[in-house]
């Protein structure tokens, strides 16, 4: 029981991070119908900016932990969003309206580019970061096992919940959210009704990159190590999460992220660590076979 609870906590933490990245995939797919392959790299860049920012703060000796985290979050979100914007502007916008595979190949090219760009500039070695947030709560204690909820886990889960609420409000209530939903339904019609489609799509990429940056900061805090390759695996799983939850649906992305995180944690805990990724993809395939639109996705009608 204690073991189960501990794994559930670990799984939810991991799932929250996947969920944040998955939102970026799901929004972009919802609006322009393409798989933004470079999104995982954007998340990786967020993590690297976080490592650099934390190191600078440590050099200046800023010891106030909440302040440091806030500063790093702000810095990471700003710079990573700039990357998100640029990626869309350079690699995807010229190909909008082209045939379906063109932006996908360009996205794969962008992914290769960013991965190696970071490798060349920041080095191929793993970057270890001194733990910033330490300590935690003990929830339950039995003779042989202690269930612990570390402060960093609380931070990750709380941040994710706050961002999700904020984001749902943004989509539901603001002018930008309305514009995004309009674009999702019909790009041409939205343009005819006076929505600046280019701007809306750009902002979607910026928002997605911002969330990925937050996820990158969180993962840096959580694991304490970052390398240039983390974007690929995380991106793949986050995309799986987006598809699992129903692509185009925000709550779906979050739910999918949580499910993937839980599956991974439990599989690693009860079966084999080596095959945890296998379990993730197997579940993705099973869900797609029996519910092709994902758990919360709308069935889409194919029109002639």
């Amino acid at each position, binding site marked *: 029981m204690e073991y189960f609870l501990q794994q559930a906590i670990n799984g939810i933490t991991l799932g929250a991070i996947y969920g944040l990245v998955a939102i970026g995939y799901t929004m972009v797919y919802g609006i322009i*119908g393409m*798989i933004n392959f470079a999104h995982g790299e954007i998340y990786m*860049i967020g993590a*690297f*900016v976080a*490592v*650099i920012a*934390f*190191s*600078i703060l*440590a*050099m200046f000796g800023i010891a106030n932990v909440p302040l440091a985290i806030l500063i790093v979050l702000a810095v990471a979100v700003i*710079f990573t969003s*700039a*990357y998100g*914007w*640029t990626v869309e502007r350079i*690699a995807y916008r*010229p*190909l909008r309206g082209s*045939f*379906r*595979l*063109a*932006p*996908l*190949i*360009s996205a*794969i*090219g*962008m992914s*290769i*580019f960013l*991965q*190696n*760009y*970071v*490798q*060349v*500039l*920041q080095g191929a070695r793993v*970057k*270890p*970061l*001194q733990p910033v947030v330490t300590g935690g709560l003990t929830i339950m204690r039995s003779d042989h096992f202690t269930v612990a909820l570390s402060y960093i886990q609380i931070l990750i889960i709380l941040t994710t919940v706050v961002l999700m609420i904020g984001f749902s409000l943004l989509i539901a209530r603001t002018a930008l959210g309305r514009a995004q939903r309009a674009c999702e339904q019909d790009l041409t019609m939205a343009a005819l009704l006076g929505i600046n489609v280019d701007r809306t799509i750009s902002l979607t990429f910026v928002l997605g990159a911002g969330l990925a940056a937050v996820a990158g900061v969180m993962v840096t805090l959580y694991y304490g190590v970052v390398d240039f390759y983390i974007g690929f695996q995380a991106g*793949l799983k986050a*995309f*799986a999460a987006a598809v699992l939850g129903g692509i185009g649906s925000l709550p779906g992305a979050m739910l999918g992220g949580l499910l993937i995180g839980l599956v991974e944690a439990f599989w690693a805990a009860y079966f084999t660590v*080596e*095959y945890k*990724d296998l379990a993730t*993809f*197997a579940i*993705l*395939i099973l869900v*797609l*076979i029996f519910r*092709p639109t994902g758990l919360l996705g709308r069935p889409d009608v*194919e029109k*002639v």
Partner: protein
Amino acid sequence: MTEAAVPTRIASAMKEAGLAAFVALVLAMPMVGLYTVDEGGVLVVRTRFDWVLIGVLVVFAGRLAMAYWPATLRIPARRDAAHVAADGHFNILKFLGIAAISLAVLLPVLPVTDRYVIDVATTVLIYVMLGWGLNIVVGLAGLLDLGYVAFYAVGAYSFALLARNFGLNFWECLPLAGALAALCGILLGFPVLRLRGDYLAIVTLGFGEMIRIVLINWQSFTGGPNGLTSIPRPSFFGLPFTRNPEEGETAFHQFFGLEFAPYHRLAFLYYLILALALVTNAFTMRIRRLPIGRAWEALREDEIACRALGINPTNTKLTAFAIGAMFGGFAGSFFAARQGFISPESFTFIESAMILAVVVLGGMGSQIGVVLAATLLVVLPELGREFAEFRMVLFGAAMIAIMIWRPHGLLARRDPSIVLPPARRGAA
């Protein structure tokens, strides 16, 4: 152009360039300008602002040139695939094809060819064959497969395991490896081919990763991350390419009375993959004229119409998937035989992406385009060896640039499967 127009154009170009330079500055500041060094377990930040300055200046100059250059000079008029005059173009491509094949056949005996050239050419041909195999799935049937490398891996491991455990030779293993890869294609395709295009892409991607995970972790069977070594080399109809053949065997050089040279084996491998690739090509060209090939292309264009005409979409897609997988398996066998060593390292996602890039950059459905793209994608990084670590950065950038320059691929023209006879076309 009026006198006043020139300064405004410069001014607007300057504005654009300034904006781009500013964005470059923001992007470069954290990633180029700052980097961390691990010093005794503590990360220390170093600066590199001179690089940032260079980067920003390059972007400024580049954007200025792009904005100022007359637009007509830059982008060649895009010709719509359907409007290309059919006949003249056909002959050029046919000529190109024949020239390419003659060059390929003569390459090993040309005086300029050394071991390095033949090695690179063999790699190119592996990608050509993989590209042609994937072209059946992506180009003809319109199914986006991001996990093609899985079948390549199945073929390679089939050959390696069969040869090592049962002592079968290359020619016995080749059909078996193809069949096993096709079987995998069917097993995977059966449940997932009902899905829409993009989901299929992601499921195949997941499948590719799954195969790799199994290869890494099933130590006792696949050798795990260390891979499999000492895979037997293919022989020339039973004549091995060794200096000192075993008792009772005749080596290739002895049989033909030649001086022993390692080059013989390289040339033989080269001709082997050339033959395999040409078989793939011939197969594809022929099957396009069969009902099943026509059905693939029809499905790509309009699935609903196909259903209405009584074509079973799942079975039709399944055959495309299985046949594509089979050629992937053949190529995998060859790869294992050529390397003599395989490990999961060779079958990563990036490999799938490369093969897909070969197909899409070449122009989907274009056979000669695949050759062009494969040559480009293999030779570019080879040429870039001097740039060492920068070459993958350049590779990624080149992929984006080619896609933006020619979104439909280098040779964006698809042979129409059915062409009306000229007389009737004139009458219509």
